[in-house]
């Protein structure tokens, strides 16, 4: 690096993030480190204190007339706007509430990374036992609502033999940007209409709180599988 850039970076470090954000600055750096798949211990479970025990969740199997307590302060379900599912139904992200779920962002015409990322997702599913599999849900959200229509999402799901545990969602650009922000997924539309994006699989607990994330392609499913098992056995 040239001396000029070194100076620029030094100045940046002096006058950039400060004050109460040092903890978050570390977290931000952790998010970038390869192999540091886990979000460093930042989950705040104190918000669960008033939440009834998970024994209730057996009654939630069909999500009918569920008494919706306020989501935890870190739940992704706080992004509560409606998306369109691959069958045309309007749903919110909390459609998977009550289940450990893995969420990824992709787009349908992506030829390089997305097929691998989806394969990595399915590897996780295949590594689970039958009863474990029944309890897990998958959310796939497109960056590209223009080209990924309800029909093309349904077609993609069929082509990948995704059963109804898989929900593919399209929404507005504002929704997509907000979700990417909450998940720490970077993306941009390139001039050719493709998307540059980071490759991330994120594990949500039953309350939609991020508990684990994996970045990269051809990632091993073991860590995710272990975390899912922890979640299922802890009730």
């Amino acid at each position: 690096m040239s001396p000029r850039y070194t100076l620029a970076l030094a100045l940046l470090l002096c006058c950039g993030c400060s004050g109460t954000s040092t903890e978050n600055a570390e977290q931000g750096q952790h998010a970038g480190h390869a192999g540091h798949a886990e979000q460093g211990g930042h989950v705040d479970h104190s918000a669960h204190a008033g939440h009834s025990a998970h024994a209730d969740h057996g009654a939630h199997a069909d999500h009918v007339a569920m008494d919706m307590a306020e989501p935890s302060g870190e739940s992704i379900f706080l992004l509560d706007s409606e998306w369109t599912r691959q069958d045309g139904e309007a749903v919110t992200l909390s459609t998977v509430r009550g289940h450990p779920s893995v969420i990824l962002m992709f787009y349908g015409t992506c030829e390089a990374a997305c097929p691998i990322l989806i394969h990595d997702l399915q590897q996780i599913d295949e590594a689970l036992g039958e009863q474990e599999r029944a309890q897990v849900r998958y959310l796939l959200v497109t960056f590209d609502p223009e080209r990924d229509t309800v029909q093309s999402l349904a077609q993609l799901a069929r082509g990948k033999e995704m059963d109804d545990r898989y929900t593919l969602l399209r929404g507005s650009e504002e929704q997509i940007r907000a979700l990417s922000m909450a998940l720490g997924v970077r993306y941009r539309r390139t001039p050719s209409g493709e998307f540059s994006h980071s490759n991330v699989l994120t594990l949500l607990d039953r309350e939609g709180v991020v508990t684990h994330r994996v970045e990269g392609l051809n990632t091993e499913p073991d860590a995710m599988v272990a975390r899912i098992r922890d979640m299922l056995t802890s009730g």
Partner: protein
Amino acid sequence: MVRPRCEGRLFLVLVGASIGALAGAWGASSARSQPPGRPSGAEPAEAMARIPAGRYEPFYPSEPGERVTVAPFRLDVLPVTNARYLAFVRGHPRWRRGSVPRLFADPGYLGRWSSPTSLGSGVLPEAPATQVSWFAAAAYCRARGARLPTEAEWEYVARADERSPDGMTTPANVRRILGWYGSPRRGRTPVGEGAPNIYGVYDLHGLIWEWVEDFNATMVSGDNRQDRDQQRNRFCGGASIGSADIGNYAAFMRFAFRSSLEASYTVPNLGFRCAAD
């Protein structure tokens, strides 16, 4: 720089507001069309400048020869102030310190305010609102029927100096900007004290960092120490490491800063302004 004590500061704010009101009145009565004058604190609507359409080479092109096209839009001439942000949280309890969900703002949110619904004597009403997260800034703009500017829009307007739409790479400007970054004012001084750029927009340089709608759109990796193979697989289609305009140090630092951010972060010298179509 001598910092005035509390009473002195209040006096200066009152004087400044009076001057601002007089300047605004003068501007309105002038026969020539001018960029909006600095608004007084009493005006209900935020002054916005009309930015014409333009094209420029982005700092991090994703393809060679890429040009960013910016459609005409409007941009706040000033960053959002503490006074205006206070009015927002008073009307939107969900966004008060202590009530905002942790997903949307970290514990530093509005940390310098004396309470969730008051600034206190240590916080200037006319200074830029800082320690606000991206989610909070976006919510503020949405509540106003506006939005955050995109990075392309913000950077486009930031290329301008007082005389030209593309003045930022002159040696004099580069020196001035590096000087600012070398001695940060931490954003505790009132907005609008410098000279506006050619569009009539103030404070894009030298006061605070500012949120943009899509700050997570740049594929720059912030840490050179990472394993190379892993890094290659983290971004699909990311060919954005090489910047086009290496003379524009200010832009380089802004992109580096943005790449370190997460949407829930609150930072003492990071604020925002709104845009509209």
